[in-house]
């Protein structure tokens, strides 16, 4: 099917099929797992691995302003930039030699673009933004995920 076409970005293919929802993440994650079983090298070679973590945010800004000051759109933008380039420092792969370089570039990008008090950690999980999102993104879940990656990266540096 479409997914076997090497020229096509797998995320784009899935998004085209499903209209860009959270299901993207789940399906692509499942596909990655299948592929992972085939060959361990494929995980690093496969650009889909992290592109699948792309958050389907369209930067409409309906969720903003966050009552607790989180720059939701900016945070997702930083995350997507890193995920699209396969540059997210995955804490599960902290032992890999690339992790240190990835953490530095990710943290620098994140800290340069988002002010201290507008970063993902300041989400208090009030879920006020969720009904406002036209893409039905579970915003607090993704912000939590981003904070987890950031905290792990900071612990390493």
């Amino acid at each position, binding site marked *: 099917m479409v997914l076997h076409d090497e020229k096509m970005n797998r995320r784009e293919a899935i998004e085209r099929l499903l209209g860009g929802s959270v299901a993207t993440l789940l399906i692509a994650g499942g596909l990655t797992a299948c592929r992972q079983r085939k060959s361990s090298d494929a995980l690093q070679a496969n650009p889909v691995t992290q592109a699948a973590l792309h958050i389907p945010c369209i930067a409409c800004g309906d969720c903003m302003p966050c009552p607790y000051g989180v720059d939701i759109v900016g945070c997702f933008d930083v995350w997507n930039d890193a995920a699209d380039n396969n540059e997210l420092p995955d804490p599960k792969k902290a032992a890999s030699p690339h992790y240190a370089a990835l953490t530095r570039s990710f943290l620098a990008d994140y800290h340069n673009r988002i002010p*201290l008090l507008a970063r993902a950690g300041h989400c208090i*999980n009030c879920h006020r933004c969720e009904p406002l999102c036209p893409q039905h993104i579970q915003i607090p879940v993704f912000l939590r995920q981003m904070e987890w990656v950031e905290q792990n990266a900071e612990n390493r540096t």
Partner: protein
Amino acid sequence: MLRTVRRTIAIVLWLLSTLSLLGIFRVAWVGRIQLVPALLAINVGILVLLAIVTLVFGRVYCSVICPMGILQDLVGWLSRRVRPAANRYSHPLWGHLTRPLILIIGIWGFVEGIHWLPALLDPWSEYGRMVTQGLYPLWLWVRDLLSGLNGPLGTWFEHEDFHTASFQASVIAAVVALFVFLTAWIWGRTFCNSLCPVGWTLSWLSRCSLFTISFDASRCDYCGRCEARCKASCLDARKLHIDPSRCVSCFDCISACDKGAIHYRFRYTRPALSGKGQAHDESRRQFLATSALFLQLPFVSRAQDIIEEGWIDEGTYYRTEQLDAEHEKRVKVYNRKGQLVVERYKPVMPPSTGNIARYLSRCTSCHLCIVHCPTHILRPSTTEYGPEGLLVPTVNFTTGFCRPECNACADVCPTGAIQTFSLSRKQRDKMGVAVFNSLTCVTATDDVDCDACVRHCPHQAITMVVRGNHKVPKVSVNRCTGCGACEFYCPALPKAIHIEGLLS
């Protein structure tokens, strides 16, 4: 030759200390080998080493190790480039009186607990404050510019949203810097010659050093070049005499003399041995008396059970009104919009500092820890510790919290005011304790569920208990280390959960 060696070592050490005061490198030993920090840390090894170096080579400490001395040399060197030196540096007679007087004032301040007096007089700390208050903001600005670059260079620098300068500290540092630069430009090493108590103390040792600068009167034609070059204004070319209280063994006079009349020689040559041996003993006795004076000073025991505070016991909620009657709110933190962020009854000290008296007596406010704190929570204090504790670093959780995997401040502290601690000790040692105020909590003001403090506590010291419609935090005093994660992440304004220091 000697001068080149001296200059090379001096420049290397000066660059190392300046760069570590800028936070670019972390070279802790540069601060530890300074005399006053070593005295305060009772670092016997370094003290013996400095004494041996001074007893062998003379007072090279001031021209090689002390960054303040090297700075004055650099300014003087620059001034001689700009305005060719015609006159020799002069030295007023009162300069001999001021240094012992200032030493006495410093020791008196140390004994009486007027912390800022010795801190003002220590050259290392003065230099530290000049760099951290003057150069460091500049470096941050440069770093900000660099962080905007694309490519690999940009990833090395991060934009940081904080400022470490405080008004009082900047004013004091600016006054000192202005004084040092101006006097060094006009009169050479004025600070060393007439103010610095450290150099004066060392000069008593250097009077009996093994090697010394000596004249060969038969070769000298009294041209006065050595006198014009002498940056410590200690040399009298007519009498061929060097004032030992000011000479820093910089060897400038040796390189200035083209007749070869000045040498750096072994002092105790055989014919003079009997006469000078007594002088040796006498000055050694003086040195012992001086060091005994330092050692006899009361060192405050650090063992103090900090938990036993009347108003902190496990499992109770703290209403700030209940405390109003007993305590005074000394610490007030405002954000940049001028809103009140937090009010503390007691200031928070950096980790592993023991009690307040010990901390204040050891710290000389060189602000090395402030620069090296990765979350930038250390700031120079203003009124937090009272008037005697001006400029001593205090903790302010507006830019982050004290990370459990970090001991940078203890690692760099040269005076031992922040004691070295292992990371496992950091899980237990207390800086303060979290106090919850239900009135400003967002569960009360905004009617939402919030778990920011629980989620971020690295020591699992907070549990949630049901109160009305929402869950509110309950702090376990035994587990809480006062790291400030809850305070930093608390969304309320003023903060509903904040850290109280454990001063007694």
